[in-house]
């Protein structure tokens, strides 16, 4: 192998061609051929999707540190997956849905894993939240209400009301049927509305 060829093969731009194309020739053919452009495309996609994904993970898990970890892992899995959507071929909406699905599965795996949390593992924000002066309106009302919801309800509500996803899109992300989502979301909405009103009433009484 020629030295130049070897250098090209060892660079991450070269690897990205295969990573981004999902490792298949078909995907590579349908995608973008220029590695530098691929980097730009990914950087653009990341710029637009990273913060919403982090917000989804942070609010669903109520743990910003965990959200950091899971967000990075979601992107790495997205880049490594064989069947992941290719931006140039499938579009950004499909890629974003896939990313949210990966993140949802990672969250589910995290919750299923039996573990005990030490005091060092609890995020600082958890303790900071006890001071009302630093809290914003949504933190005061939404955070306690979300805490009383089931993880799956939190995820559904966030996708529907923060991300504006339709029932069909939420079903794709969560791996459930659209009919189930319709019913579960309806129940979750009733529940959180009651909790938000109760929180608002409590807050009004305290002040």
């Amino acid at each position: 192998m020629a030295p130049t060829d070897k250098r090209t093969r060892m660079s991450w731009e070269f690897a990205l061609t295969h990573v981004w194309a999902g490792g298949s020739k078909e995907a590579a053919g349908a995608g973008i051929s220029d590695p530098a452009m691929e980097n730009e495309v990914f950087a653009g996609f990341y710029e637009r999707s990273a913060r919403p994904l982090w917000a989804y993970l942070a609010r669903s898990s109520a743990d910003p540190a965990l959200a950091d970890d899971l967000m990075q892992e979601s992107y790495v899995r997205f880049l490594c997956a064989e069947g992941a959507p290719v931006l140039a071929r499938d579009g950004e909406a499909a890629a974003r849905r896939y990313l949210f699905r990966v993140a949802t599965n990672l969250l589910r795996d995290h919750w299923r894993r039996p573990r005990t949390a030490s005091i060092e593992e609890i995020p600082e924000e958890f303790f900071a939240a006890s001071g009302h002066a630093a809290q914003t309106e949504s933190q005061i009302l939404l955070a306690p209400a979300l805490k009383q919801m089931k993880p799956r309800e939190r995820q559904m509500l966030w996708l529907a009301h923060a991300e504006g996803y339709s029932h069909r899109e939420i079903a794709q992300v969560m791996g459930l049927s659209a009919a189930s989502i319709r019913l579960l979301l309806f129940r979750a909405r009733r529940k959180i509305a009651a909790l938000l009103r109760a929180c608002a009433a409590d807050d009004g009484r305290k002040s």
Partner: protein
Amino acid sequence: MNLTFCPYEKEVRQLMARGQWPDACPPELRTHVSSCRTCGDLVLISEAFQHARVESLAAARPVAPAVLLWRAQLRKRNAAMERIARPLLGAQIFACAVALFAALGFAGFEARSGVAWLTWSYWHDWFVQLPQAAAAQWASLSSASLAGSTWTWMVLVPALATLVLLGGAVVYVATDKQ
């Protein structure tokens, strides 16, 4: 729980998605929302989640995309290495099995002559006589015709082939690790 959907729900949702609620909303719809539980819930929840989303977006500190690309590349490389190493592991297991069978065969063969082979003096004599025995064997092998010593070749050729294969595998693994 009964699923009760309001016919105005879609309209309210669209207005909220476009950021037109409540300023650009018709007064009659606003009146409806204040009296309808479904639409009231929708507005309450959507506003709370939208505020939370804006705050969370500002709080996010994503790492540089190059870091993720590098990690993905590393993981793909490791996966590829694992795929390559899998047949080598099979070869190693095969080599161990062959060696084990050879050792057991040898032990069984030697056991026929009693337990003398377990003594030190037996092995001392064996090593002393080994060069002479090997030379004699080689001489008989080279002088004998192929047809006359078929059994010798049947043992020697697979043994040499195994050695070559295993040697190649060992060299490959050693250079690969480096």
